[in-house]
């Protein structure tokens, strides 16, 4: 299995064939959406190979330049909403989770295991049932229809997730590092800030990305909690292009491309660290 001399030409060709098939499977829907976005008619091409007859940016223009009746630039506002909400969700939940995750990874205290178990349990409870109580809470706080309210809603999933992710990351960082810092004269907090956090940077970046992506991509809760067009995030705006009675597939596709490109760029920027944070070289050979 690891001896390359054994891989004859045939075996290599078969490997490439299998991988190419898989790549085709992976890329097909994406190409389909792109060709739909570029096709001038905005109707799906009823053919197997997703290449549009002609290329036109009309759908992109229609989506990106959408204005509301009062002449406000809707797409701009919705883009801003999505960006602010996703960024705030990612930063707030990671900032809140980081010290707590560190404590869960390092300290033994009364209730440590219990709280991890409770956290784990919350992940098994489907969100459908908590949507209604959350709606009532947001209403009581006068946060319905606001960005801050949406951030709170997204934090309910992002925060437990960040806690788990970061706890794992901190457990993977050798204790020696922070002990060395403390012997060198650091307080526990200084050791955390100056040594542990920088060592956990890749894991923190990945956690931020996940939280950002989750918020950027979410639409069901946003559609439930928002009721003004200029408060919408992009997914809510997008989903409305393919309603039951009027399907504007071209605009949906153009919008989908616009929404996906930024997250995909971010995803690829950190994809090297997707599984497991790295502290290579700091300890041992």
């Amino acid at each position, binding site marked *: 299995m690891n001896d390359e001399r054994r891989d004859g030409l045939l075996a290599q060709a078969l490997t490439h064939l299998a991988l190419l098939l898989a790549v085709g499977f992976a890329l097909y829907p994406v190409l389909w959406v792109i060709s739909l976005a570029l096709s001038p008619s905005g109707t799906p091409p009823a053919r197997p190979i997703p290449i549009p007859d002609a290329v036109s940016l009309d759908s992109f223009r229609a989506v990106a330049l959408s204005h509301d009746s009062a002449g406000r630039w809707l797409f701009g506002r919705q883009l801003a909403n999505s960006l602010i909400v996703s960024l705030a969700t990612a930063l707030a939940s990671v900032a809140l989770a980081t010290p707590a995750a560190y404590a869960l990874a390092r300290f033994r205290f009364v209730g440590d295991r219990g709280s991890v178990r409770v956290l784990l349990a919350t992940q098994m409870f489907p969100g459908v049932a908590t949507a209604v109580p959350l709606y009532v809470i947001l209403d009581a706080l006068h946060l319905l229809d606001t960005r801050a309210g949406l951030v709170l809603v997204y934090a309910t999933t992002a925060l437990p997730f960040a806690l788990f992710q970061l706890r794992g990351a901190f457990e993977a960082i*050798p204790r020696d*590092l922070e002990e*060395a810092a403390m*012997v*060198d*004269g650091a307080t526990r907090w200084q050791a955390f800030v100056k040594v542990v956090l920088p060592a956990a940077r890749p894991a923190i970046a990945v956690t931020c990305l996940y939280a950002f992506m989750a918020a950027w991509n979410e639409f069901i809760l946003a559609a439930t909690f928002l009721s003004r067009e200029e408060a919408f995030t992009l997914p809510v705006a997008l989903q409305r292009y393919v309603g039951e009675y009027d399907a504007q597939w071209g605009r949906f596709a153009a919008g989908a491309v616009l929404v996906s490109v930024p997250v995909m760029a971010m995803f690829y920027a950190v994809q090297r660290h997707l599984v497991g944070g790295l502290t290579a*070289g*700091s*300890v*041992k050979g």
Partner: protein
Amino acid sequence: MASLTVRGVRKKLGANPILRGIDLAIDDGEFTVLVGPSGCGKSTLLRTVAGLEEPDEGTVLLGDRDVTRAPPRERDVAMVFQSYALYPHLTVRENLAFGLRLRKTDPAEVDRRVAEVSRMLGIGHLLDRFPREMSGGQRQRVAMGRAIARRPQLFLFDEPLSNLDAALRSQVRVEIKRMHADLGATMLYVTHDQVEAMTLADRLVVLNAGKVEQQGPPLEVYHRPVSRFVAAFLGSPAMNFVEGDLANNALRAEGLSLGYDASRFHGALPPRAVAGVRPHDVVVSPDRGAITLRVEVVEPMGSESFAHGTIGDQPFVARLEGGAIPSPGDTLRLDVDPSRVHLFDKDSGRALDAEAP
């Protein structure tokens, strides 16, 4: 520099006692090595001195200052970790300066000290590298440099050589010894390697199961072990132990009769005991030899060779000089200088010439 005093330190991990009442007094400038098998509590003791663990009972004094409950940063100690624990996101220069900057040392002074340390350890060319860009030996040096740059009252080493290969290890060992001579600092060094322990220590502390088994200058501990445990732990190959009856200033068993120096033993000796003989103290004596060794395996080392075999049914190793190499199956007659024969209680393992514990 300062002296270190540890008094009656006890610590439990859960229900499991790790340290069971440790007393140590280390003089200013002394190089002390804590040695013992894994799990004997030596690392825990070191970490207690560093302030990384808090003892359940007892006190730790640095100079005259009670630091038992003080956090590590208030103790002014430096520590070299087995894993080196270099900060992965900092360059060598920043690693060396880390502790100094935390203490708000004047930047010019920081630069001066970093330069001095890097010259001393020959790591000047590595200053702008990151830990992951260096070899194991280089990392180890940086880890020591980080401690030296701090100029602490006390240096702590936690098995700092165990991740190096054999050649590098003996080289760095010598360097540490030289460094101690140059700095004249108080050092506490933990290892399970008895060669390191013997060669580095001014004072050797042998720990066993959370207690100090014996402490003193290394040669004294080597030659006058207070227990079978210490005797077996130091020396390679390990000391031979044979059990037999005591009578007429000799220990007898099947295939051997060992004379001992009765003047070393005071009071009445028990009828049966365990004799300890180091392989190096054995001489071949075809005429007068009172020990008959049946050779089973021979290890020729060039200048010497080791013959493994049995006396009666008890295993025994003998070191043989130079060229005369026996073959498996041969029978050798051996003799031992009575002053080199140790006697241990066959149940407690205490040396019979040791003072009552």
